[in-house]
């Protein structure tokens, strides 16, 4: 875990790469309680919704992106994770997650690190993007 005093604007977190497999999406939908069939696990339903293929739920991509931050800052470090789901995310393809530190400040006795966070595809597709605020200890 890094210390707040060691971080500078422009520093990068990650990147890490993950793949959302068909089985993992199906498992996630079960936990989530998504009614079946749905556009995340059924190709016909996805097609009827205007999708080329089944897609990864936005909340699942959010959980994956949160891991980039908790792996870096610790399990309780996320104060705010605010994402826009820009493009449908495909199954079974490499997804890259990275963050760029854009602000550092102390608020109410906490050290806050703000960053832009993105999930991109193999051709640079910007699937999910947004902002995160993480708290870090001082050395």
């Amino acid at each position, binding site marked *: 875990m890094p210390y707040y005093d060691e971080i500078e604007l422009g520093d990068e977190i990650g990147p890490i790469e993950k793949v959302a497999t068909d089985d993992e999406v199906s498992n996630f939908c079960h936990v989530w309680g998504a009614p079946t069939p749905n556009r995340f696990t059924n190709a016909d339903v996805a097609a009827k919704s205007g999708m080329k293929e089944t897609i990864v739920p936005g909340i699942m991509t959010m959980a994956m992106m949160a891991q980039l931050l908790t792996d870096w800052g610790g399990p309780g470090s996320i104060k705010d994770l605010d994402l826009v789901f820009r493009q449908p995310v495909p199954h079974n393809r490499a997804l890259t997650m990275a963050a760029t530190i854009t602000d550092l400040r102390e608020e109410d006795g906490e050290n806050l690190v703000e960053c*832009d966070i993105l999930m991109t595809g193999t051709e640079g597709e910007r699937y999910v993007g947004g902002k995160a605020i993480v708290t870090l200890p001082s050395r």
Partner: protein
Amino acid sequence: MHSHSVASDDSRATVEQYVKWIQVLRKRGHTVDGIVLTEHRQFDSQKDYSSLASQFDVLILKGSELDTRYGHFLVYGVTEALTKAIDFSDVRMDSRELMKAARQHDAIALPAHPGRFGIGLTDYIAQGETFEDVSIVERFNGGSRPGENERADELCISHGLLGIGGSDAHLTSHIATCMTDFNAVIKKESDLVDALLSNEFQPVWLADTLNGSSA
């Protein structure tokens, strides 16, 4: 020439974060003189960024990005009178009426990301629409997907249009990815309108400005 702060529903960057990031870019050797905030479907005449601008030595101007029947339009030189003449929240306004109203109120409205699939001016022109009052478009847009800036390029070449560059930033670190290099000195919104009407500018990528190589 095109950026959104948290005042726009889909942006996550504050103006202060943008100007702080510009210091990072300057430290890396890039030239970034100012930004224009073009919030979606609104204009806040009360917002005053002058002390922030002075503190960080970044010119901060205000404009708007409006949704219209023929795509999004960037509006520079917005006045209170213009906001009364046009309903900025109307997502189906007529872009030709917008352009006329802007000129009548000493402002200028021009197409944003004309190559954007599904909502760019190129698509409406392909459907047979004509836009006689368009002479400038946003040729470089930092939020474009593959193929979209290329379509804007083709439009400029085929129709003899001038182009500006804008980052379309919705996140802090995306500010200034594309910019516009003006010959004129610009200090306020009316200077920006005059500079656009002078036809003396070109779109640039951030990389073009490394170590003073452009602008």
